[in-house]
């Protein structure tokens, strides 16, 4: 399969809601670099069609997930403005295949930042806002069965995201150990803490800015960064109501066929 065909296959999987088998099944040589090339082609096509890049998401930020795939650095995907869902809104299943949800922390900068030597303090000095968030993922591969290059090509399963309304920046010193409770239909299904994202969600931005700098890109003021899942993800089903809560914010979303 050529790169162009892979891009088309992923886009068609999304629009027709039919999943693919992983590229690495038939092409074991398909690499992480190849995966990012496909991801970039999908982003460029979206932008040509009038979509707007709204930020980035980090994946493989927890020790448990890194162990699962034996890769010990995070991966990244892109976010589009059309993926954002308002808090307490509705997640539509009609445009998705088999979506799952997981709580995260989102961070927005107030100044652009680039550079391969960026440090956490450079990030902290430029934070505009920190938000409780929930990511909706939806693999375009059957049953979420993929290897690392596949999931990178598939934009790290990105599908949607919600941000809470409260800016948690005043509570920065409490961020790492701010307990997160994730409920489905009123029942607690997962708990976690932001320290689960590379020890501190700020480190997720360090990794992102450093990785963008490899292609002379940077993080722009106002872009949203999802810093990585803090609990296991859960399938979302019709009529489910999910709620994400921390000490200073909470929001929910419902799921519609």
């Amino acid at each position, binding site marked *: 399969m050529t790169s162009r065909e892979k891009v088309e296959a992923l886009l068609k999987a999304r629009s027709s809601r039919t999943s693919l088998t992983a590229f690495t099944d038939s092409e074991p040589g398909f690499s992480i670099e190849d995966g990012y090339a496909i991801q970039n082609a999908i982003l460029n096509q979206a932008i040509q069609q009038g979509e707007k890049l709204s930020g980035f998401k980090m994946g493989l930020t*927890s*020790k*448990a997930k890194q162990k699962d795939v034996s890769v010990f650095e995070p991966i990244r995907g892109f976010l589009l403005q059309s993926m954002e869902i308002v808090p307490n809104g509705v997640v539509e299943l009609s445009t998705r295949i088999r979506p799952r949800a997981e709580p995260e922390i989102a961070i927005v900068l107030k100044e652009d930042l680039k550079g391969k030597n960026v440090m956490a303090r450079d990030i902290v000095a430029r934070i505009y806002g920190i938000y409780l968030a929930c990511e909706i993922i939806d693999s375009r591969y059957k049953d979420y069965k993929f290897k690392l290059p596949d999931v990178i090509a598939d934009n790290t399963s990105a599908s949607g995201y919600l941000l809470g309304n409260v800016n948690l920046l005043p509570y920065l010193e*409490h961020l*790492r*150990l*701010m*307990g*997160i*409770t994730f409920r489905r239909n009123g*029942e*607690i299904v997962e*708990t*976690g*803490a*932001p*320290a*689960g994202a*590379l*020890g501190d969600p700020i480190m997720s931005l360090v990794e992102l800015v450093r990785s963008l700098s490899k292609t002379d890109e940077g993080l722009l003021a106002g872009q949203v960064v999802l810093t990585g899942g*803090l609990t296991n993800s859960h399938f979302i089903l019709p009529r489910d109501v999910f709620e994400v*809560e*921390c*000490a200073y914010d909470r929001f929910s979303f419902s799921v519609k066929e």
Partner: protein
Amino acid sequence: MENKWIKEFSDSLYEAEKSRTPVKPLTSTKTDLSLEEAYQIQNFNAQRAMKQGRKLIGYKVGLTSKVVQQKFGVDEPDFGHLFHDMLLLNDTEVDLSQLIQPKIEGEVAFVMGKDLSTSGVTPTEVIRAVDYVTCSFEIVDSRIENWKIKGADTIADNGSSSRFVLSPKKTLLSDLDFSHVGMALSKNGVVEVTGSASAVMGNPIHAVAFVANELGRFGKTIHAGDVILSGSLSGMLEMKDSDFFSCEMWRLGTVNVTCRNKGESK
């Protein structure tokens, strides 16, 4: 008045711990072992410990999350006895050669300021009776081969309890809402698992009320000064020689422990 096999099972678990040689699951020997019978075995060994001069200093609550209960085929938490020689000092070493197959987990510990009733204990009564709360490690260690335990096995085996560590930080309950107390458990400086205290029955206070009411059924009471380990906030980690573990909790302090294999035995 105990059945002969209650004493036999008690003896085999006692010997297993002493010799650090695990035994087959009790539920594989006696498939219909009930939870009540399992508590009789636990109590038999608790009595033995006290006769030997070990001081009872509190209780642990386990199986507090729905997921873990489902895994062990039970529908409510369990408890075990804590003795003074199970308490390790913070920032010290745990000698793995004294243990069989230890695992570590982070929990909220309660230190009681007043006695609790023996029945009808409500969260309100618990809140009024708590002296302070703090961050703790529980080191669990099954005396059953390869942790092949069902609910009755771990209950008979004193909730698989082995050692625990308390943070020296004293936090008053006053305005603390446990649902927002986050925890990060690190191994060798890297965060391995996180959780929130809401994972423990929605609120760890519920676990203390639960154990107080359970103990009442056995004619026991939680006393002022007792320590209650209220249940794990997340998954447990295996412990290997030279591993350094750290557990941080929002407002409740930090505990650290280093693993050392000090002996040839085991």
